């Protein structure tokens, strides 16, 4: 059971290189673990990067490394769970650095809560048929996967997190087998004629996360 009054510090980082955000997460994990920092939610976008976990099958990266580099996309091995994924412009990325000792100490339940933080705003505010698939992690709209989750936990503090395609170049995902699955990938803007602003969705998801985890959000917004 979460405490009602735990604060949630929200930091909007704008566009930040993956490695820089990763370093910040690792520092925050230590701070949150020792109580020097409140639970913190980083919200950002990344320049184009393909990331993969330690146990990723390299067969899921469908083009040679040289070709990926030639396209100006970075490759980065990381320590989160899951296989291979893509981050880039038009994708909202959320890194909750949360102390799970106060949120149930349950890895799968935590990921279901992250999914809910995406699903509910998409359904209630945008009228999309967003849903979770039993046995799979992530968020779908119709047959398309739009939300991706991969976490790591150290000292029972969670880091890494989730990403949502808002207006991503679809060609980017053709370079990989996202999450090691044969899935169709889409962005929220594919379902609307008028563009949905990324910061609008981010604000909704931040609010929903605070609600889901019973935290009180603090922190200013920033122009993307």
């Amino acid at each position: 059971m979460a405490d009602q009054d735990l604060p949630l510090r929200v930091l909007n980082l704008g566009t930040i290189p993956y490695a820089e955000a990763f370093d910040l997460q690792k520092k925050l994990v230590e701070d949150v673990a020792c109580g020097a920092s409140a639970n913190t939610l980083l919200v950002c976008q990344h320049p184009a990067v393909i990331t993969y976990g330690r146990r990723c099958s390299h067969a899921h990266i469908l083009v040679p490394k040289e070709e990926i580099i030639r396209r100006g996309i970075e490759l980065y091995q990381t320590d989160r769970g899951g296989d291979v994924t893509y981050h880039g412009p038009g994708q909202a990325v959320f890194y909750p650095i949360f102390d799970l000792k106060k949120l149930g100490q349950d890895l799968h339940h935590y990921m279901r809560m992250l999914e809910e933080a995406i699903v509910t705003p998409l359904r209630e505010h945008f009228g999309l048929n967003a849903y979770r698939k039993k046995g799979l992690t992530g968020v779908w709209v119709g047959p398309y996967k739009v939300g991706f989750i991969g976490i790591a936990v150290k000292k029972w503090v969670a880091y890494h997190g989730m990403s949502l395609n808002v207006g991503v170049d679809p060609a980017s995902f053709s370079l990989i087998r996202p999450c090691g699955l044969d899935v169709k990938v889409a962005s929220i803007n594919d379902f609307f004629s008028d563009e949905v602003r990324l910061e609008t969705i981010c604000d909704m998801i931040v609010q929903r996360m605070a609600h889901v985890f019973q935290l009180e959000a603090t922190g200013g917004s920033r122009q993307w």
Partner: protein
Amino acid sequence: MVKVYLPELGEGITKATISYWYVEEGATVTEGSELVEVSTDKATFNVPAPCSGSLKGITAHEGDVVEIGSLLAVIEEDTVTEPGEEEAEGA
């Protein structure tokens, strides 16, 4: 000897895969340091060293799927000699 077990990771999680050992057998570890990373679904979890000492035996290797509560490794704990203890024992 202190035994290191795979801890409870949540309701319904019965197994995890050993993804990465941060240290090799025989290496010195300090209490709380990263020992082994395990993975389940889309999550990784770092099991810390429960004490300082020497990693004497790894019983679950990278790629192995192990059940919650399984033995992962054994650490030979550092022995701390209290001041004056040796003299007292030798007297």
